């Protein structure tokens, strides 16, 4: 099907099911129950799942396949965001041109940075990409203010030209739409005590992510992908056999950058605002965390990692001291206090602490990420998979 082997097609089908039924799957708890705060089925969060999923899939094409660790990927996301806001401002409020342009601009940006950065590998490559991203961030926040809006960020305004739509001087600022269907449009379906929310923007992101996932499946199984894996395993040997790796690396880097640009464009399509902090190196670090946590070099890992981090970021930030006290209220008082005191630093504002600890644990004990964890648990329960199911995955250990 679609040029995929059986296993990949199954994976694609699995992701498609997840995406279509996400509003149900993420809302398992009834509204009135105390667990309702763990529901994640609201539009904003679901959009972020899909968008960061795309970002992580793109990063994984670079890091997972070739082992080149880029610490400046957020620059492409930021460049894409700015480009698409400008499209919304200048051309039309329809998001399609914005998304296309954001992908292209990020691609060009990645090409320029890639030409320079890919002259080196290893830690030098990481530092070079980091340097470029930090430069982009610093410039966007200061000198390029006319283009980027500086510290306050760039957003659509009432008196933008919008050539195709015709300028409107009165009324509200139009919100981004897909041929008239606003991306913020939602439809709610109450079923008993449950309330399911369907959002136009989310489904647009979901379709994009499905396409992105499909492309990544094809890249992983293509001869091009095989060559990238060979670069990761041993670049020298490849050079000795007479293969020039530079064009392949560059193509891979640009594709990866375009994914980030697409994610940026979608982000703007959901909320027409772009700020410089999107380019900061902490944002680049976040996507690294997602991919590693999910499992670098695996197909489904980045998607899982992105969903995992975004979900727990939201949920953990909501837990406060009284919620914790509620949980441990069944315990005797002293014990309750002890547990609350121990756990409190990890929730609420301390989410990053949890993330850091979790990330370290994954890197130390589970270099293959969640995917490897799932496999190990699977083995533990004696469900031995046949050998051929595992050959589709690349070796999770990154090369030097």
């Amino acid at each position, binding site marked *: 099907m679609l040029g995929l082997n059986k296993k990949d097609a199954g994976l694609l089908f699995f992701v498609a099911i997840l995406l279509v039924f996400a509003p149900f799957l993420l809302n398992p708890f009834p509204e009135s129950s105390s667990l309702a705060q763990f529901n994640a089925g609201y539009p904003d969060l679901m959009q972020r799942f899909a968008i960061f999923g795309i970002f992580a899939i793109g990063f994984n094409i670079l890091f997972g396949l070739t082992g080149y660790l880029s610490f400046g990927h957020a620059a492409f996301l930021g460049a894409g965001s700015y480009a698409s806001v400008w499209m919304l401002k200048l051309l039309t409020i329809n998001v399609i041109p914005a998304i296309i342009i954001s992908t292209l601009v990020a691609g060009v940006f990645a090409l320029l940075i890639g030409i320079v950065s890919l002259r080196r590998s290893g*830690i030098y490559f990481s530092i070079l990409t980091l340097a470029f991203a930090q430069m982009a961030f610093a410039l966007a926040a200061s000198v390029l203010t006319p283009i980027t809006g500086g510290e306050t960020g760039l957003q659509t305004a009432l008196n933008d030209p919008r050539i195709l739509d015709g300028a409107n001087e009165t009324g509200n600022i139009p919100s981004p739409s897909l041929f008239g269907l606003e991306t913020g449009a939602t439809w709610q379906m109450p079923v008993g005590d449950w309330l399911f929310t369907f959002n136009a923007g989310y489904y647009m992101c979901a379709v994009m992510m499905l396409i992105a996932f499909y492309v990544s499946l094809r890249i992983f199984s293509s001869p091009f992908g095989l060559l990238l894996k060979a670069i990761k395993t041993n670049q020298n040997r490849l050079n000795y056999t007479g293969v020039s790796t530079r064009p392949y690396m560059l193509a891979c880097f640009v594709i990866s950058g375009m994914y980030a640009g697409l994610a940026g464009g979608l982000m703007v399509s959901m909320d027409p605002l772009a700020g410089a902090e999107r380019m900061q190196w902490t944002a680049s670090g976040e996507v690294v965390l997602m991919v590693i946590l999910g499992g670098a070099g695996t197909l489904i890992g980045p998607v899982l990692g992105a969903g995992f981090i975004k979900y727990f970021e939201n949920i953990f930030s909501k837990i406060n001291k009284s919620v914790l006290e509620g949980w441990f209220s069944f315990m005797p008082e002293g014990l309750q206090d002890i547990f609350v005191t121990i756990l409190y630093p990890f929730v609420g504002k301390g989410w990053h602490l949890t993330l850091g600890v979790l*990330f370290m644990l994954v890197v130390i004990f589970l270099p293959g990420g969640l995917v490897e964890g799932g496999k190990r648990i699977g083995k533990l329960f004696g469900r031995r998979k046949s050998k051929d199911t595992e050959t589709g995955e690349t070796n999770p250990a990154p090369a030097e």
Partner: protein
Amino acid sequence: MDQIVLQILNGLDKGSAYALIALGLTLIFGTLGVVNFAHGALFMLGAFCTVTVNRILNLGFVPEGATTQSVGGFNFGSPKETPYLEHWFGEAAGQAIVDWSVPLSILFAIPVMLLIGVIMERGLIKHFYKRPHADQILVTFGLAIVLQEIIKYYYGANQIPAPAPEAFVGSFDFGAMIGMDAGAIIYPYWRIVYFVFALIVISAMFAFLRYTTFGMVVRAGMADRETVTILGINVDRRFTIMFGIAAAVAGLAGVMYTPINSPNYHMGMDFLVISFVVVVVGGMGSLPGAVLAGFLLGILESFASMREVIEFLPGVNQVVIYLAAIVILLTRPRGLMGRAGVMED
């Protein structure tokens, strides 16, 4: 002319911080071959040693019979606390100790940072020697996040001021001292103190490596670990100690930096990115290279911040370090003083 001198001076204090952090990074890389992304967090921990010492010194108690304070009819509730130090040593001596809390923190920071460094190496980094550099970067990056968040939890997200001793507050006229017009170059005292301090630490490090047996073994180990091991020397233990020392150097840089820039929990990350650039520019694994590049980039940054330069090339002050790094990496792949065979592609 005075502009040039002024910018060089301005670059020195930042350059000193870069040089100190980069020195530690290079030591760790040269000895253990580990790329330590948590080094900025060590700098930050050092700065928070100062904050801790400051708080300890200001601990007080309520003297018996003290009445509640009231100013102009307003009642402030609790009675005034008397710091223990003032109680023990008398008012003048007690206040002097509190006043000198930043330099005093050095005494506190050295053992603490050594301990943290050794624990870090034994507890975590040790298990990553055989793993790829990407894994080392990732795990130390995670550690940096954890350390940063712990500090944020206990000390809050705001900057905490830690003033320099009274004697070093203010500026002096450097121009007049070197025979230029009075008032041309005004320079804060503490920055000179910081620069001199950095020079002392750096020279001490180099002397330690150059003239002690311990340093000799460490240098031998850096050059050829296997041979030194075969000769029956426990290189691992010495490298662990070197990791502690590198952590202490970063910590001391942080301690003394507090009066220049009030510490907050993410200061380490801000310095780390630049320090990595410094290390790479200086040449991976080259100690003199790291120090040289630290000062050079610090001075370069301050020159780029001159008004004339900014008018000519807007925004250059923000990016000059990265630009320099890109140019140097592309023209001199090993950095300024890099050795062959270290982290070669």
